[in-house]
């Protein structure tokens, strides 16, 4: 397993956000975590990347225990997190945003090569490379956030609601990008409210309900599951 969360719990003060959550992500797979608002999806992702601390449980990444490391050290291990709401740096230019993603990398030539790769993956970012990021549309900002995460040359990509607030055409584009990344061998953990999209992209899926693990299984099976269909797919 590339990433393994075992019996994880997170509390905010007295409120328990998630409890006893176990998630396994094998190398090269796309795993999705679906669920309603406040189910604990974002908290789970934030715990993986070290933005919130566990009150119980363990997280192992690439054979190492990481749940006691600060976020900036976990990035160095090869985990990239595309946060909810994109969180690009509004007053940095597009190129500066991307290069910030490569902050920990010292090999200039490799960074420049990856910058070119991101620009060829997202031609619109190249057109806007000297523009400040705040001037871009929501879809472009999402692409920038993904590009920035890729610039760290990660082993795994955590994505929090990449489709949020975007027009259906753009959502389709983002889905294609995730598919493409996956065929190129990237391991992806995808948190989505758009369960239809998530189950279509993922190999394996977890369903969170009010901080508890409700269901898990291969994405195709969950797609046909009565409960999932009624609660999340509106069928």
């Amino acid at each position, binding site marked *: 397993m590339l990433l393994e969360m075992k019996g994880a719990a997170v509390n905010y003060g007295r409120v328990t956000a998630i409890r006893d959550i176990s998630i396994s992500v094998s190398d090269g797979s796309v795993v999705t975590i679906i669920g309603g608002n406040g189910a604990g999806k974002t908290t789970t992702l934030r715990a993986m*990347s*070290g*933005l919130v601390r566990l009150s119980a449980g363990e997280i192992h990444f690439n054979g190492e225990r990481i749940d006691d490391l*600060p*976020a*900036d*050290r976990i*990035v*160095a291990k090869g985990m*990239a*997190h595309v*946060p909810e709401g994109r*969180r*690009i*740096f*509004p*007053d*940095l230019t597009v190129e*500066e*945003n991307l*290069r*910030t*993603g490569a*902050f*920990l990398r010292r090999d200039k030539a490799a960074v420049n090569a990856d910058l070119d790769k991101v620009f060829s993956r997202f031609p619109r970012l190249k057109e806007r490379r000297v523009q400040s990021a705040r001037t871009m549309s929501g879809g472009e900002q999402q692409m920038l956030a993904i590009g*920035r995460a890729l610039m*760290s040359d990660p082993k795994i990509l955590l994505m929090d609601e990449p489709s949020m607030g975007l027009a259906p055409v753009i959502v389709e584009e983002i889905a294609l990008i995730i598919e493409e990344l996956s065929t190129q061998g990237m391991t992806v953990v995808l948190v989505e409210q758009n369960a239809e999209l998530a189950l279509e992209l993922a190999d394996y899926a977890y369903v969170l309900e009010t901080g508890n693990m409700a269901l898990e299984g291969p994405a195709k099976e969950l797609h046909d599951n009565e409960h999932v269909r009624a609660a999340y797919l509106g069928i």
Partner: protein
Amino acid sequence: MFDLLAQTVLNACYSASYISLVAVGLVLIFGVMGIVNFAHGELFMVGAYVVVALYSNYDIPYVLVAAIGLVFVGCIGLLMERTMFRPLRDNPLGGLVASIGFLMILQALASITFGVRMAFVPPVTQDVIEFTDKIRLPLQRLYVILAAVGFLTALWLFLTRTRFGWALRASAQDPEAAALQGISITQTAKIAMFIGAALAGVAGVLTAPLISVNPHMGHSVIIAAFIVVIVGGVGSLEGAVVASIAYAFVHTFVTTFFDGVIADITGLLLMLLVLIVKPTGLFGTADRA
């Protein structure tokens, strides 16, 4: 009349220079750490006392004194980060209160060590550039102007051309998203604190031979710097520089043609006016203010 105007412009350029050095450091610290450093004027004061301690009493070259002052005050900044602002990271109000306490400690240490009276600083240079017999620029003032331009340019290049510069700006805009890029908040806080404090210290070193050096000299500077930071837009470095120049010109002209008290009042009124017309300051944006 032309002579007086030209002379006042030169004086304003000089005040703009040291005020902007102090204000930019204040903005940098606030931007990266979210803390209003009330002790910033006292860092300026410590810089001036480095000159008193080393230049007035020993035969150390002034340039070396300036370098020592810069590093010494920068290290005080690191000490503040480690002992106060890091433990109080999630508590900006606590950081502000701690910085007020630190201000008092620095003032008391300066009073104990050097006395409360004005300290003697021998002139570094007596040379004066005479444009005409009425328009004169003392060389020391020119040093202050050139140093300010030099340091601010260096800071600008650092912030826009280097990976640590991007990291600092990224962390100022969104510390959590910066951490997700592998940028350590502790590291950026240390850099911001060192640079911010060092700039205030070097401003104190440069102006020491020109102004009255005493333990309470930080007050007037910090008030000017706060006005400038608010007018320029909290969190905006370019705003702080532009507002420093604007403030220095208004203040110097009003002082020359009316008097100093009216100049202080005018400065504060202008700040109120800017806050009414554009509450985020001239260069501020809503998400940073």
